[in-house]
């Protein structure tokens, strides 16, 4: 008896008599040997497939397309604003907090009813996904929707809706019969990815990847792995955040002593590496990429924006919030090793640094450990413009650097008026863009609470 499974363009028979292949004592070092032991013919070695980025869609506080966003990163334009936030004023009154707010047009891809029923995270995800699909040039309408996977990173999901509903029933003496029936579909963790599938008709797998503020990178890594496993042929992946709708996020950072302030200018609150930095700006945003195996992208004549050549996710295993530079350095070392390159071949390290006093120093220690002897490796930061887009941070910050493969310009980290000596690495690009001979490799760091570290390495595509 055989069971047919679908591998792209092929039907492969698995012999069910070989279930002993799952016996725990056997150790398969590669998917090849595992497959061979089960009688699966060696077909496309997808696990070795090169994975490329062929499209990008985004919304960030300072841009709703890659072009607008990149221009603002090179022009030093941030658009952080003060917004009203429930309970964040004195004695529980509404107060004001700095935040990164996106101004994309949600009605471009959603009906008014979809917007009313869904979540802000879903709306951001749909906008970014639709823009990414358009950017990829894929004949989406005629593509087999069951072969598309959706992998969306989130820092958290559900806080916004829960806070809103508790507030809502507070107006009805906490009578839960006024609690909305939309609460559960809005707060399930897969919501933003699921909303993408409902909006687009994609019937392949969808889920979110909860990875704190490393989630954007984690979404991309998940997609890469699923493409290599042959589970899907086309992937939408990245990260989203709706966190600015939740007073709890702001209040939590404030209680931690990690909510940033500036005496006069919201655009100067997020100032990683500046001696006076005092915390995070919470932002919303989203960035979704289209990923494909190189052979598929080339077969359809896609415009290839970059190749993912290395990655690593590891864990500090040490603290709930405090970063661990040893593990961060290990993460970067491992990503470089996976990429099969020397550290000195990395042209840009885009830092995670969030503008907290300790976190920025810790990351710079880790970077010095890995790249201290690399004279042509430059370091920058994107949160100085857009704040901390939480689950979207990794994906959005990477996008801000992608055009460097074409223009060979490294966008700076802005708002550094008094560089902290403890963050003063030689190749930190401060306040002004830097033109270099060539940018061929970018490493993107994203770290998160509970000690999750991620590093993703992209290479300029060369056939």
């Amino acid at each position, binding site marked *: 008896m055989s069971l047919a499974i679908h591998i792209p363009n092929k039907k492969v028979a698995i012999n069910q008599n070989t279930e002993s292949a799952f016996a725990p004592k056997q150790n398969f070092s590669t998917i090849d040997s595992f497959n061979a032991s089960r009688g699966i013919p060696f077909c496309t070695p997808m696990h070795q497939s090169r994975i490329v980025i062929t499209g990008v869609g985004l919304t960030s506080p300072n841009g709703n397309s890659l072009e607008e966003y990149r221009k603002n990163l090179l022009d030093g334009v941030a658009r952080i604003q003060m917004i009203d936030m429930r309970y964040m004023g004195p004695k529980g009154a509404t107060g004001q907090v700095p935040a990164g707010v996106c101004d994309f047009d949600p009605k471009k891809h959603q*009906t*008014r*009813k979809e917007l*009313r*029923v869904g979540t802000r995270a879903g709306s951001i995800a749909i906008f970014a996904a639709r823009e990414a699909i358009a950017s990829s040039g894929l004949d989406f309408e005629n593509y087999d929707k069951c072969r598309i996977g959706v992998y969306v990173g989130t820092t958290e999901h559900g806080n916004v809706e829960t806070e809103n509903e508790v507030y809502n029933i507070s107006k*009805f003496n906490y009578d839960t*019969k*006024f609690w*909305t*029936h*939309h609460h559960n579909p809005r707060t399930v963790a897969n919501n933003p990815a699921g909303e993408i599938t409902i909006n687009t008709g994609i019937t392949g797998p969808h889920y979110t990847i909860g990875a704190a503020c490393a989630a954007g990178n984690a979404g991309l890594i998940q997609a890469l792995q699923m493409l290599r496993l042959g589970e899907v042929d086309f992937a939408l992946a990245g990260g989203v955040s709706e966190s600015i709708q939740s007073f709890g996020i702001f209040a939590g950072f404030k209680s931690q002593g990690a909510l940033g302030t500036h005496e006069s200018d919201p655009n100067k609150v997020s100032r990683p590496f500046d001696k006076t930095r005092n915390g995070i700006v919470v932002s919303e945003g989203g960035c979704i990429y289209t990923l494909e195996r190189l052979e598929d992208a080339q077969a359809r004549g896609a415009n290839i924006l970059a190749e993912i050549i290395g990655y690593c996710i590891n864990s500090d295993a040490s603290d709930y919030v405090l970063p661990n530079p040893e593990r961060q350095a290990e993460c970067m070392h491992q990503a470089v090793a996976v990429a099969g390159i020397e550290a000195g071949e990395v042209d840009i390290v885009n830092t995670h640094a969030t503008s907290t006093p300790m976190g920025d120093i810790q990351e710079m220690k880790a970077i010095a450990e890995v790249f201290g002897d690399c004279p042509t490796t430059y370091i920058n930061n994107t949160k100085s413009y857009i704040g901390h887009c939480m689950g979207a941070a990794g994906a959005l910050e990477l996008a801000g650097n992608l055009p460097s493969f074409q223009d060979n310009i490294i966008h700076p980290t802005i708002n550094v008026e008094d560089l902290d000596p403890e963050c003063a690495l030689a190749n930190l690009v401060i306040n002004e863009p830097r033109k270099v001979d060539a940018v061929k490799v970018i490493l993107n760091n994203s770290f998160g609470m509970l000690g999750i570290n991620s590093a993703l390495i992209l290479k300029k595509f060369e056939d």
Partner: protein
Amino acid sequence: MTMTEDQVQQIVINIINEIAPDEDTTGLKPEVNLRDQMDLDSMDFLDIVMELRKQHGIEVPEEDYPELASLKSCSDYLTPKFNAE
């Protein structure tokens, strides 16, 4: 003040305009099921029930949900409830 059936139907239309903002509610036929005239799903009917509760203090028990099928059945069912307030 006694509510008329027309007024109650207008209240229901106003709620539909809120919960299904893409739908055109002009020219709805009172006798025809709402779902045959508009793209409404079961969650939308729960929204109508919730808004009747929130805005007007009207309770519609689950076994009576079929009474909300058309504008006419809505006003037949809801008008006495409004006037009992």
